[in-house]
């Protein structure tokens, strides 16, 4: 089974673009998190913060 996976990975065409794609995913993901954080409602944050004390 493993050999099957191995051979397919070895023969991926244009594998060079792989790291570039992953970097793009990476940065887009973090920009999304940042935008979300900037827009986040303060009341909601206070509520979440206090969960351990409820």
């Amino acid at each position, binding site marked *: 089974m493993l050999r099957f996976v191995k051979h397919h990975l070895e023969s991926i065409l244009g594998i060079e673009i792989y790291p570039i794609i992953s970097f793009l995913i990476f940065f887009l993901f973090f920009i999304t*998190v940042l935008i979300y954080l900037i827009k986040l409602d303060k009341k909601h944050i206070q509520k979440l913060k206090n969960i*351990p004390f409820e």
Partner: protein
Amino acid sequence: MEHSSKNLEKFEYDNAIVRNFLIATVVFGVIGMLVGLLIAFQLVFPELNFGVPITTFGRLRPLHTNAVIFAFVGNGIFAGVYYSLQRLLKTRMYSDTLSKIHFWGWQLIILSAAITLPLGYTTSKEYAELEWPIDIAITLIWVVFGWNMFGTILKRRVEHLYVAIWFYIATFVTVAMLHIVNSFEFPVAFLKSYSWYAGVQDALVQWWYGHNAVAFFLTTPYLGLMYYFVPKAAERPVYSYKLSIIHFWALIFIYIWAGPHHLLYSALPDWAQSLGAVFSVMLIAPSWGGMLNGLLTLRGCWDKVKLEPILKFMVVALTGYGMATFEGPLLSLKNVNAISHFTDWTIAHVHIGGLAWNGFLTFGMLYWLVPRMWRTPLYSKKLADFHFWIGTLGIIFYAIPMYWAGFTQSFMWKEFTEEGFLKYPNFLETVTVLKNLYLMRGIGGAMYFIGVIVMVYNLVKTAYAGNFLSNESAEAPALIRFQEEKQEYWHKWIEKRPVQMLVLSLILVAIGGIIEFVPTFLIKSNVPTISSVKPYTPLELEGRDIYIREGCYVCHSQMIRPFRSETERYGEYSKAGEFVYDHPFLWGSKRTGPDLAREGTMKLRKPNAWHFTHMLDPRLTSPNSIMPPYPWLIDNDLDVSSTGKKIQAMRTLGVPYPEGYENEAVKDLMKQAKEIADDLKNQNITVSPEKEIIALIAYLQRLGVDISLEKKQVLK
């Protein structure tokens, strides 16, 4: 979310399971650290190896690491998770039966590790030494843990999942992935297997695992515990919840990529090394974000920290976390790694993380939990304070000599005379000089251990004075339904949906994991095959298994880095193509003794008689050596009953032994053994060719020979 006051439900928290894990963490903490103390002193007084197999350094060191990581820290994680999860979700654990299976299953795994490792049953892959039946058991018990945790999350009475739980989810899913991928092995007997991967591939998979075991077993679950227990102990909410969100996603995403920093300057492709280094440096940001979030939670209550040992433990734990996570990226820089790798610097680094971050956070948690669960004040705050101070001093006394030893060792290895020769050509000189530092480290460890014993006394006294509450009554309104909010942002959405959280976490860690595996799988086409590299002979293969059994790789590397100081000392640097038949790879991670990659070649080759005497007692050939003696290798008969099976297994894994060779193997083995025994006889050493020592000598004499043959071919 809508709650109804009429709908207040009564339920009970399960404290008994927390208590069980808590006792286990204390018991195994004591045992694991005691073994650590013994092996620390073995490096100063080799007599402490006691001349018997089960107590030698090479077998006890994996026992120490496994005990402190999986038994001490592991049970600590489960105690903290089972306590906090129930309270954060306002519900009892999903199933008491699953809790019990999880607890007893985990303890049985630890017990089997404690038996098999000293007996020499090991895969040789660091922190994954346990053999295949135990690996399967770990997988099953881990699934039980996840099942129980998710069942609990799904029947919760609160809408949102607190950040600690995200860390628990990421821990569960990533450890499962790491363990399964790294444990692909081919069984040849009940407790013997060969890694599915070979050489460079095996090394990359192993350090992807090894690095992320630190990330997802020693770090993320403890960060979850930190986000619960630090605010609880400080009686104020976490400093910044926004920061904790960034901390979580950044940490799990970046950590998984950084594994190749364990293999800098090795035979791994350069781009994979650089990728590992870049992500390691990026890791500083989320790690320090998390540390500062923990420390700043204590803002405005530093006066309390002065009086409360629990908070003191937590402050030192967070500081240790900060130090270790600053040092980690530093060690990933190639120029720093060139100095630190293979030296005691690594040992210092991991113990700052282990002793301060994991150790002290566990102690803080224990001092907080025991009085609450036994419903009585702590027996003695003074003793807890004493524990804190002797523990902190212990860490300092441990770390400073190890840093010193690391630098000393590295600079001595690299120093040349004006004439251009190695200043310390005899490796032993660079070892004996460290003995006093090793002694001081042992004393530091002993101080830390005394603190732990004092804690045990304090906690036992507290428990005896109190009254344990197995089932703690609680009440909370039932969760009626999720209220869909207009314009709900994705994160608010996911905070309420544990299964989606699990899937997203898995995707994130899998992306990093897959990217790291690309070089692994491309390696076959990237690495020029070296025509003179041939499979081991049956005798050498058996010798290699003895090398693995005795844990020789714990102190001896087989990886010559491309530095002049190393090629002068050991010969030509190691090439990826040399290891294509090595299931598992044996590069090692520490040079307490010299590298052995070229031990059988002209420059380093020694007579068979030298190896025989050296194994009988290393101090006969190398005065002041700290290596343990291995007299049983001379007495034990070599077990050839599974030699044929081993050849067959290797062929299945891709080693080109001819079809049917398994039937010839033992005959060839005996022929080669007789040649070595005859040679020893000429040197006035009479030993039967059937003894284990002969196989080990054959293996050692083979190391590095293939590549020197290639040179000869080129010259011809």
